[in-house]
């Protein structure tokens, strides 16, 4: 049974048809990337998965259960977590409080949850009493990642993790993504940066104007001529 499945989903913003018959699935423990340029529907796909927007037709399933009509909080409770684009930290709250919010549905987080996150990001333990808004970009990325992991997700959604970070931090960030993946968490990375995400992913989907134009193993996609032209340069 797939961990997450979008089945022939059509999502609209008012009259505008954004996602057009989109079907994707993610198996337990997989690392999948969803590629596409601006306005390709990547963010809308994530919003549809989370239930921030509802599809007009089609279904969203988590472990086989139809959650299409369920609210975001229910889906988070079923094992989804997200590192949003631009991190979206609660800037006027402390690092600790941000982490607590990540574990909101689990009562604010057990001791082990904090320990696991601090082990991954020792710096966050040091900075736990600091306001999240005062941290540097790289540190904020750690908080966003830690916050998402606090809920012990089965599937971690990552929206543009390389956006707005220095190249060295992007690399570091993807190392962490791999590390989290190796601990058994399935991950969906939504990215414009095809090169770096395909290098760590098992499989990939390519979106263009709301339609799926390519899918396959990451290794095959890397060799794909069209994709190379469109995203990888050369």
């Amino acid at each position, binding site marked *: 049974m797939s961990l997450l499945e979008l089945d022939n989903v059509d999502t609209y913003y008012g009259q505008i048809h954004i996602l057009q018959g989109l079907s994707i699935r993610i198996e337990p423990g997989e690392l999948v990337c969803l590629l596409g340029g601006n306005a390709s529907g990547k963010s809308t796909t994530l919003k549809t998965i989370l239930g*921030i927007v509802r599809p007009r037709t089609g279904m969203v399933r988590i472990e086989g259960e139809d959650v299409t009509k369920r*609210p975001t909080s229910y889906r988070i409770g079923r094992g989804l977590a997200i590192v949003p684009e631009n991190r979206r930290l609660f800037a006027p709250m402390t690092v600790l409080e941000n982490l607590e*919010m990540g574990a909101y549905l689990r009562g604010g987080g057990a001791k082990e949850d904090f320990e696991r996150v601090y082990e991954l990001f020792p710096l966050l333990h040091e900075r736990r009493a600091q306001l999240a808004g005062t941290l540097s970009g790289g540190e904020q990325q750690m908080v966003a990642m830690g916050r998402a992991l606090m809920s012990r997700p089965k599937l971690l959604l990552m929206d543009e993790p390389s956006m707005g970070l220095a190249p060295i931090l992007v690399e570091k960030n993807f190392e962490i993504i791999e590390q989290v993946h190796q601990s058994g968490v399935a991950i969906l990375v939504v990215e414009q940066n095809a090169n770096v995400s395909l290098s760590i992913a098992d499989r990939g989907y390519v979106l263009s104007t709301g339609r799926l134009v390519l899918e396959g193993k990451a290794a095959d996609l890397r060799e794909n001529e069209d994709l190379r032209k469109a995203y990888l340069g050369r």
Partner: protein
Amino acid sequence: MDQFTQLTVDALTLGSVYALIALGYTLIYGVLKLLNFAHGDVFMVGSFIGFGVLQLLGGTDNPVVPVWALLVIITFAAMAGCATLGVVIERFAYRPLRDAPRIAPLISALGVSFFLANSMQLLFGADPRNYNTFDLSNGALYLRGIDIGNVRVPLLRIITIVAAFVLMVLLWFLVNRTRTGKAMRATSFDREAAAMMGIDIDRVIVFTFVLGSALAGAAGVLFAVRVPTTVSIGFVAGLKGFTAAVIGGIGSIPGAMAGGLILGFAESYTQGYVSTKWSDLVVFSILIAFMIFRPQGLLGRPDISKV
């Protein structure tokens, strides 16, 4: 010196009531970005619930419970009644307009304000209602108290000020130390991100209305134990609370407390040292000065729109 002491006590009594009203404005604005103009009328309803429960308990002449219990019961009754009222208002007047342009819930709020004021007038008439707290234990609440210089600060004043501050401390604790309070702050900073954490936004909003309206109910009683209440006090009280919230920085909890006290002091000192007629002029001039020189208020954050 004695006049100064007297005016300062007045300022604290008045200011703490304004602060309680302002807190409701600021809490609701924080999570919903809505100016709940019905808030002053919730305050008015609170003062009437207090009056009603007081009569049920035998009135001031013949109370069936000790005085301290009487005061506690009427305050909690008003808080509970107003909390319920707040939830109903949110459910029927604001929630259906959640995704409408911001002007729509604002007009809805004005509608609720008129609805409450006029229904209360139809039900109870326009006559002032006096709690007659002086008659409780032969005036002990007024005659006993603490002496500062030649001024006796009556017990009732002390109770009012202390009760208001206890409520503010409780609120501070709730918002900063509890899971629900933190969820409120997260929601008020970024509603969508809060939803992404699994926070049920509807529940947070309902909880905020419970909290804000309960504070308004308490303020209604703390106000009406000293001054007779009428169905028309809601408008002015709401305006003062709103002004206090804006001066303090709307959305900021310590700001609302500070704003309420500033208003109380401005009003009281103007009345004492200048003239009663001038007090509203001074209060609203402060508002205008803030709008011109510090529009985000004392402790508010400037509204930076993302490009």
